[in-house]
């Protein structure tokens, strides 16, 4: 009796497993089919196209959490689509998705867009979020190949990523005739916040044209904060002392606040809080 019961249970269990496998398999197949259709729709996707046609890609990306193989597969499909003859809207969408799951593997394809005036921002949108060093290297390599606002964007991203290897290139850009480029270079040097960038900003602060004085001062303040946070208090204090001589009153106030914070003190008005 017992052995019969065991056999029946075994058969039922096997049947359940087979059914479950079939259900899961068919669900997965249906999802794959939807995903294939979405990638097909991406080829003709444009501004104003119903966004829901791409939803299976959104869903596949969310589902790929902790599934390295699925993530890699999606990344490669997105890269292939990016290299195809698709619209700006489609490339915009692809960069957004790569910003979520992209790795070093997608960087070469995305980096190609960095010099394109229409697509550079979305390339940065992806690269700023991709933690791999290759993403920063791509930004660094694009810097000399860009001009105008596109260059400003690349400079900004190097600052966001705090790329110390870009200090020399950014230092050279402080003298750029384009004020937006010079201001962006100063801001990024401040954000990078190394001793070398502090030296560059100290020189820049002394000779910055009037229209760049606020940008130079702000960069020095940010740099001082970053230096202080890294334990380089002497260098931070030197920057604050430099700015304490500023004729711009709120800059002077900010420098004083910085010095007090560095010394572990607070302003009197702060104590009221």
């Amino acid at each position: 009796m017992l052995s019969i019961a065991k056999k029946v249970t075994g058969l039922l269990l096997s049947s359940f497993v087979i059914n479950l496998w079939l259900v899961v398999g068919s669900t997965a197949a249906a999802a794959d089919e939807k995903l294939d259709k979405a990638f097909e729709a991406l080829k003709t996707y444009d501004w104003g196209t119903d966004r829901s046609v791409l939803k299976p890609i959104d869903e596949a990306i969310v589902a790929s959490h902790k599934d390295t193989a699925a993530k890699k597969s999606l990344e490669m499909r997105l890269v292939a689509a990016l290299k195809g003859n698709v619209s700006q809207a489609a490339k915009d969408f692809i960069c957004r998705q790569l910003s979520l799951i992209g790795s070093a593997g997608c960087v070469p394809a995305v980096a190609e867009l960095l010099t394109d005036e229409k697509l550079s921002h979305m390339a940065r949108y992806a690269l700023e979020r991709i933690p791999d060093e290759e993403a920063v290297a791509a930004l660094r390599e694009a810097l000399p190949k860009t001009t105008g606002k596109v260059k400003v964007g690349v400079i900004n991203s190097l600052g966001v990523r705090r790329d110390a290897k870009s200090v020399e290139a950014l230092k050279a850009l402080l003298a750029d005739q384009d004020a937006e480029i010079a201001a962006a270079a100063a801001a990024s040097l401040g954000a990078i916040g190394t001793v070398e960038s502090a030296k560059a900003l100290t020189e820049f602060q002394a000779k910055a044209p009037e229209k760049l004085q606020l940008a130079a001062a702000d960069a020095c303040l940010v740099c001082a904060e970053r230096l202080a946070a890294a334990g380089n208090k002497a260098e931070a204090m030197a920057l604050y002392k430099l700015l304490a001589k500023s004729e711009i009153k709120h800059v002077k106030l900010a420098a004083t606040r910085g010095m007090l914070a560095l010394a572990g003190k607070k302003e009197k008005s702060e104590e009221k809080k």
Partner: protein
Amino acid sequence: MHTNWVTRRTFCQQVLGVIAAPAIVPATALGMGGRPAPSERIVMGTIGCGSRGMDDMQNFLGNPDVQMAAICDVQATNRKRAKAAVDKYYGNQDCAAYRDLRELLARTDIDAVLIATGDNWHTMATILAAKAGKDIYCEKPMSVVVAEGRALCTAVERYGRIFQCGTQRRTVDRFAWAVQLARTGKLGQLKTLYAEMAPAEWFPHGHHEMTLPPEPEPPKDVLDWDMWLGPAPWRPFNPKYVQRGFWMAHRDFAGGMLTEWGSHTADLCQWANDADGTGPVEFELAEGTVIGHYANGVRLFFEPGKWPLHVRFVGTEGQVYADDDGNVEAKPQSLLADRRFGKGYPQANHVRNFLDCVKTRQKPAAPAEGAHRANSACQIANICLQLRRSLRWDPANERFVNDPEADRLLSRAYRPPWSLI
């Protein structure tokens, strides 16, 4: 004290010393008629003059120690309407109108700004204002992603600016009273907080990334599309983007239903839990909602919303409910006693609190850090919904716990020339 004041006072003295007074000068301009003298007024500019900006601006105009000197908007219709309102109020034509906020912020005579742009611009405009040495009253929600809010707090702190977030329920008596019940232990040990999201019917497409078909871009003087987009990704113009009902549901421009009301309701909950400098440590994705779990055991429920906006705080020994219609309920009822509260959610007290703080340099009712922490709780709940999973959060470092994928959603690259650094 206020750094620009000295400059302006000196400037006024110099100007009045060399220029004879014109034949017709309104008495108010000379400090008569109950108005402080010009040198004692807070000179302001308004950036963003849509319906909310106009409403806020009227509240500022109602304060005799305010001189609204300039307005700015990327849309001509808003510029004209705002300038006309200011000029009518003062009985002159002096209000300057700008399309580019950088021109307004470059004016050294302006002490403070009201920022009431679309949400997408709140952070950038505030940071630019702080860098220009202005004090700031900024509408809620103050950012679209978490990194923006942190950058805003840092800039405001760096320059020692007064910042008031437009979460005016902090200065509406019934909400402040309800919060104080929770903070002073009158509800026993605090257990659960309920923060309403904005009504779902306002967001028929959810929190989305829709694009719209291109339409002819208007001349810059009519609507400066590039400036309207600001730091957000470019797309061809379509007038629907500019409609509040559309952009406030779009991921590129706002935080959807969670931040629309959550920046108020979660703000009051955070305040009630004495969590202005922190936030939940875990965000649990639950049926139709997200539940925040604080380190002290208190839970924050983001509830589906319906009018009137309300909050509810529950403790071991009591609970309290307050809403925008003036309803206040408490258990035990003895907590309420014979207190009576008004209706609505006026911002007059909030505006006055900001102006007083500009003068005294005291901390305002809704400072940057508290507003950021409340808004970021909503933004993290949004990330839970987007990734469809629960998340653990490190409030000290403002990163997810061992979750680099989720961390990616904390920031976004800005379109040049705009930058958070």
